[in-house]
């Protein structure tokens, strides 16, 4: 109970203003109570005094009138006077008493009769004292005064004046005093509240401003014209906030501004997007531009980071100019990071995400115009330290809430749109397209899966036999890659190899498949006692690796495969590349004893001079030249020409894609040495191939032809 009372008292007296109000209220009410009490007693006394004065006055009057009649013993002469006196409302009774105590004259209402003895104790008291006396009875004021002439008392005037008016006056006095007291009970605290408010207002202002500052609002300022010490406090407070604001703004700039371009950084951008998207019930309409500098990496690689930084600064300046041209107001880093951008008011946020990536938040209606302007202005070359730098920009646009309503999704959409622009050739802008996004997402997923497959060595080696046209014997096999996707099943090489090439995975995949192929070839030869050769496809990136030949030699050694039983297939395009590295690798391969084949010949562009200088062993004629070979005379002629050219170059010919007896018959007739195709066998896992060849060997002897094998589909 005591604790509750204490806490209640504490709550009641919380705050200076409240305590001041209570204290002033008590003071005012105390003063009012004292004044009212004094006033009450004074007025009460005055009212009583008024009656006493009236009694005295009336007594004097009656005495003056009565004296002649008393002296002449003529009470009858007073009869009418007393009768009229008695008729007055302000007289209860009036009587003259002679010195012997007999009623000399009495009004009609006097209880004592004319000539009756007056034995009133009060009268006797006055007779004894010889001085006027009066006393207050319940309903009247009783006054008895001696009437004297020359020091001799000739009679006593006995008067009773009603107190009814006095009682009414006193009652009115009590009521009015009570009402005034009640008014003060209300008015006093109100005045106290006004005064305390007046006194504590500056402090309340200060406290309110301090609360605002504590909540992060540094725009709080105190206005004061109180012409006292509080003015100094207000000035100091405001000055302190000015300094604090500068200091915090500087800190914020350090934290949220990109030092290179002096525009807000990614963190600030994220905050502002959050500010715009945090209210789900009041979604803001705005656009996000994702700007990427095309070929910036080349600039960095070519001219160094110093030039790259200068380029980025100039790039940012141009974007700022574009914004100015469209009357967009760049919103910089400010103290109140929770204050949303005024998009509709023309405010726009230009931030650098990092590297060569910039982002803009702006009114969605202006976004395409600005993007177009930026693309145009970036198409002009930059003059940096005497260099002419030609870069361009690709811009993706995402709209809120049309494309997304969260920060992550919006940035992702803008990023995707930017890639769309890039895929379209760059130097352009694109608005986010969901379908393209899905496609890109699928490709991205494929890339991830591929990367994982490479890391986990999830590829499988298939072998497709190469058959001697004349003897129908297996002379070799082409190593083919197969990928069993965990969820999508088997994915054709045509589908995933280009993606792997785009990802730069081909050297790694080639390395994996090479190891598998040489190992499988060695095993097959050992188990079957054959000398078939294994052909592996090699990408141009592998041939650009100076260590390719050495690594291949190592793999051969580890597997125990004779280099003569390995044939490296390169495409016609790779073969035509004039690269020292390629030539060096080819030379080293030749030195190892590895054979070389030109794959898919006939569908590319071949430099006959280059072919002539290349020491390759086999021309593998593309299946497109074989498919119509039975019926198409021109195809037959073309094929015979290739055969003649191969003969000139002293290279063997392998026909790919042979599927019918007629095709084989033609090849046989044309003198082709080896063919490959479904007519002989489909590609099969290496393990099956070993069984297959052993079964075939059981029925037919295998010729040790030393043929090459191919690593291609």
């Amino acid at each position: 109970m005591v604790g509750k009372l204490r806490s209640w008292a504490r709550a009641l007296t919380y705050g200076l203003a409240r305590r001041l109000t209570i204290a002033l209220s008590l003071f005012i009410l105390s003063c009012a109570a004292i004044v009212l009490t004094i006033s009450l007693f004074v007025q009460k006394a005055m009212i009583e005094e008024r009656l006493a004065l009236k009694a005295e006055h009336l007594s004097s009057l009656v005495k003056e009138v009565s004296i002649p009649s008393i002296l002449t013993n003529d009470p009858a002469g007073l009869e009418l006077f007393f009768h009229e006196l008695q008729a007055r409302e302000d007289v209860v009774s009036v009587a003259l008493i002679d010195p012997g105590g007999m009623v000399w004259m009495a009004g009609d209402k006097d209880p004592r009769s004319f000539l009756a003895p007056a034995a009133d104790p009060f009268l006797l008291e006055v007779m004894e004292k010889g001085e006027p006396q009066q006393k207050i009875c319940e309903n009247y004021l009783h006054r008895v005064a001696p009437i004297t002439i020359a020091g001799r008392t000739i009679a006593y005037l006995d008067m009773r004046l009603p107190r009814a008016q006095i009682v009414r006056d006193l009652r009115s006095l009590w009521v009015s005093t009570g009402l005034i007291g009640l008014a003060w009970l209300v008015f006093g605290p109100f005045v106290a509240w006004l005064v305390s408010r007046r006194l504590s207002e500056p402090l309340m202002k200060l406290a309110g401003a301090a609360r605002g500052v504590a909540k992060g609002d540094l725009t709080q300022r105190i206005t004061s014209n109180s012409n006292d010490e509080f003015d100094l406090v207000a000035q100091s407070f405001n000055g302190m906030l000015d300094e604090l604001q500068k200091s915090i703004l500087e800190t914020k700039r350090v934290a949220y501004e990109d030092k290179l371009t002096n525009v807000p950084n990614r963190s600030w951008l994220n905050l502002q997007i959050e500010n715009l998207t945090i209210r789900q019930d009041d979604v803001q309409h705005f656009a996000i531009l994702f700007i990427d500098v095309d070929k910036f990496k080349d600039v960095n690689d070519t001219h160094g980071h110093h030039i790259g930084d200068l380029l980025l600064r100039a790039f940012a300046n141009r974007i700022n100019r574009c914004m100015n041209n469209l009357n967009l107001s760049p919103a910089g880093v400010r103290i109140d990071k929770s204050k949303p951008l005024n998009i509709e008011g023309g405010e726009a946020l230009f931030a650098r995400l990092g590297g060569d990536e910039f982002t803009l938040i702006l009114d969605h209606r202006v976004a395409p115009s600005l993007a177009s302007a930026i693309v145009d202005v970036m198409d002009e070359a930059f003059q940096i330290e005497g260099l002419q730098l030609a870069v361009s920009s690709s811009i993706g646009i995402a709209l809120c809430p049309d494309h997304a309503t969260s920060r992550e999704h919006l940035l992702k959409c803008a990023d995707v749109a930017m890639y769309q622009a890039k895929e379209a050739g760059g130097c352009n802008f694109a608005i986010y397209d969901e379908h393209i996004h899905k496609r890109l997402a699928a490709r991205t997923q494929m890339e991830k899966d591929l990367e994982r497959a490479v890391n986990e060595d999830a590829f499988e080696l298939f072998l497709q036999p190469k058959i001697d046209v004349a003897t129908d014997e297996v002379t070799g096999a082409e190593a083919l890659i197969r990928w069993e996707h965990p969820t999508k099943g088997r994915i054709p090489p045509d589908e995933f190899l280009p993606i792997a090439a785009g990802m730069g995975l081909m050297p790694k995949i080639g390395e994996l498949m090479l190891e598998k192929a040489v190992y499988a070839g060695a095993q097959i030869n050992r188990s079957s006692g054959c000398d078939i050769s294994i052909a592996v496809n090699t990408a141009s990136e592998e041939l650009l690796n100076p260590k390719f030949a050495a690594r291949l030699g190592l793999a051969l050694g580890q597997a125990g495969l004779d280099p003569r039983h390995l044939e490296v297939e390169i495409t016609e395009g790779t073969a035509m590349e004039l690269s020292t590295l390629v030539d060096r690798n080819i030379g080293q391969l030749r030195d190892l004893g590895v054979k070389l084949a030109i794959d898919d010949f006939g569908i590319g562009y071949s430099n006959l001079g280059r072919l002539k200088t290349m020491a390759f062993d086999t021309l593998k004629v593309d299946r497109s030249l074989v498919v119509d070979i039975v019926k198409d005379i021109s195809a037959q002629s073309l094929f015979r020409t290739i055969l003649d050219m191969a003969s000139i170059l002293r290279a063997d010919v392998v026909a790919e894609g042979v599927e019918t007896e007629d095709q084989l018959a033609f090849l046989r007739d044309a003198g082709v040495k080896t063919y490959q195709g479904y007519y002989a066998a489909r590609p099969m896992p290496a393990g099956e191939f070993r069984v297959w060849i052993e079964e075939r060997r059981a029925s037919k002897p295998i010729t040790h032809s030393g043929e090459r094998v191919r690593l291609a589909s």
Partner: protein
Amino acid sequence: MVFFSTLRQTLRIITVLAVSVLPGIACAEVLVLGSVNQDIRKHLNRFAPLAAYLEEALAPHGVTSVETSVFSNSGEMATAMREGKVDLYFDSPLVAASVARRAGAEPFLRRWKSGVAEYHSVLVVKAESRFRTVEDLQGVTIGFQEPDSTSGFLLPAALLTEAGLKLKEKQKPWTPQGDGAVNYVFTGDDINTVAWLARGLIDVGATDPRGLAWLEEVQPGAYRVLARTVDVPRQVVIRRGDLDPALTEAISVVLQDMVNSGEGIATMAQFNKTTRFDPFPQGVEATFDPIYQKLDLLETLGLM
């Protein structure tokens, strides 16, 4: 209503005062009531309700106004009546008879007062007084009311004279006594008479039964009656001798009829506690012959 009534009354008083000081003969349309008293204001107030009543009641008889005239003594009243300035005069019987004789007026009606039709006068002494009969009163001081008072002077004076006593007036009670005579002083009022008696200023007080009753009430057993006079009408009304008979009759009817209405009773009550007007039961002559004889005696002795 009260205001207008008061205003009318005030105007009437002013008119009466004016009339009282102007000589002339009362018009037939104006009926003048007369009274004798030292206190003019008191009597004007006393007559006002009756005057108003009569004015209204007698209007059908050509009376347009009823006014009041107050005179300080019966002589002035007699003169006024004789000169036709007063039509009706109200007073105690001996005074009224004296005025009637001098003015040629005639007693007219008996007036009851406080329910009393007749009254008398008594000589009162203190109970312990040594006086037993009127004959014992030689050399004492008697307090009479005033010369024009029936009960306060004329009746007791006649009684004492008839008893063979010689009366001698003195101005103040404390004036030295005259030898062999009954000394008397005028107290001016019945109240004064009993007051003086009570205070011992006089030895005997001549008063009416009312004064005696008062003394017995306030000081029971302290006083006793020494002698009692004959009964006379309590009050009488006399009329001017030449007043129109028809109007006289109308006035008689109206005054006697007042007892039959509430307004009349109330008006009479305001007129010095009057309770009725009626004819003299024994007739005028039978009633007034003894009175005239007493008046003759008093006049003979020079007491009137």
